[in-house]
């Protein structure tokens, strides 16, 4: 399964990309969308909402299960991807393109502590 090396990851299957301006873009991995099956509902956070790392930030529901998406680091929501909320199956089609929300992290160094592609890959090996 595809695990891009230019992204960071969490054990709960979020991917995170640091943009040039320091903001973080967050989505769910290919592994996660495959495990969920056909995704039919996405609930995104409000822009401006502040999260602590590990808080429930969004919800992705497939036909068979509801999955909480967690804030990978502490920060404030600066943007959400409304087109993905309107077309939930785009996550199945392109998990790394269908980002969910962007965060302004409260601590820039927190990103570096996330899992790299290798480490995340090991967590998904069964």
């Amino acid at each position, binding site marked *: 399964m595809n695990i891009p090396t230019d992204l960071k990851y969490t054990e709960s299957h979020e991917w995170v990309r640091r943009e040039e301006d320091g903001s973080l873009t967050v989505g769910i991995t290919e592994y996660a969308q495959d495990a969920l*099956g*056909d995704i*039919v*509902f996405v*609930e995104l956070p409000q822009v401006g909402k502040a999260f602590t790392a590990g808080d429930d930030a969004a*919800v992705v*529901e497939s*036909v*068979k299960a*509801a999955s909480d998406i967690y804030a990978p680091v502490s920060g404030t929501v600066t943007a959400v991807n409304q087109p993905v909320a309107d077309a939930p199956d785009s996550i*199945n089609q392109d998990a790394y393109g269908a980002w969910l929300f962007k965060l302004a992290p409260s601590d820039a160094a927190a990103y570096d502590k996330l899992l790299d592609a290798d480490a995340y890959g090991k967590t998904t090996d069964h």
Partner: protein
Amino acid sequence: MTLKATPLNSAHRALGAKMVDFGGWDMPVNYGSQIEEHNAVRSDAGMFDVSHMCVVEVKGANARGFLRALLANNVDKLQVPGKALYSCMLNPEGGVIDDLIVYFLAEDWFRIVVNAGTADKDVAWMEQQNVATDSGLTITQRRDGNEPIALIAVQGPNARAKVWQVLPTTQLATENLKPFNVAIVGDTAFGEAMVARTGYTGEDGFEIGVPATQAEALWNALLAAGVKPAGLGARDTLRLEAGMNLYGQDMDDAVNPLDAGLAWTIDLVSERDFIGKAALQAKGQGAQFVGLILREKGGILRAHQKVVAASGLEGEITSGTFSPSMQQAIALARVPMDVAVGDTVHVVIRDKQLAASVVKLPFVRNGKVLAA
């Protein structure tokens, strides 16, 4: 714990199926997209491996009398060989041991198909009653060891035509079969075939039983004829749209079938006595079983979510999903008696109470959306 496998296990894996533990069975949940599989059944033809379900033979001179007392629905409705009946089998408290289909083949031979997870319980119960009533019957399950029968359900508007392509010698016997009737045809390329015009999807089609040794060959022949493999994920969205109950979820040993929308399968009117009749007559109906369509964005309807009626009384969703045919979240729910079709109720999803409409079942039948 090793999972149990049907005769089609390698066939599923060869197709790249996503396999899951389904009540102790290693079963395909989808072959890529359960929504695509669902749509294939509604528009064309799809097939399900249902060999985890169990054929049970009930043989003997007293078979009819035995089943009249055992089953909640009345087998006396079955007078012409080949006719079938959907029924519950109740315990003395009126709870549901299983739901099943009974096929009348001959006065001394009825064939019953029961659910996978309940088969052992069902056969043990039937044998117990056989002894208790001194009926002298031979009750044989045809899944584990005893000349097993594998079951493949082919469903959809083009299902029967595709089955006849693959099993041409069955066409004569089954072309004019009405729904809820079965024919057993001896001379097919896949051994003796039981072909029943029954199903669990709300579409037309045949459920086919062949010797387990022939199952993979039949499956591959149906594949070659263009029938799309469909997994348990699609099976659930199809049956829910069709308003069909799932044992273990919509009802179980502790549930009164009158509260599970099954009153139509229970004959409380005639003088025939059956196990559970007295208990049901004493209890009566205590809850309604309805369809719900979610009307506000905020999630998907799922089993165990709380339903709040306008009166404030509460019910519960027993089965919920996202309907591919309707593109809406739908559910089956047990609700208070004061709730009526057309009412708006609220479903508790996470921290919200979301509005849902109460509708009559089924939601969808023969490819058409009936509830809106």
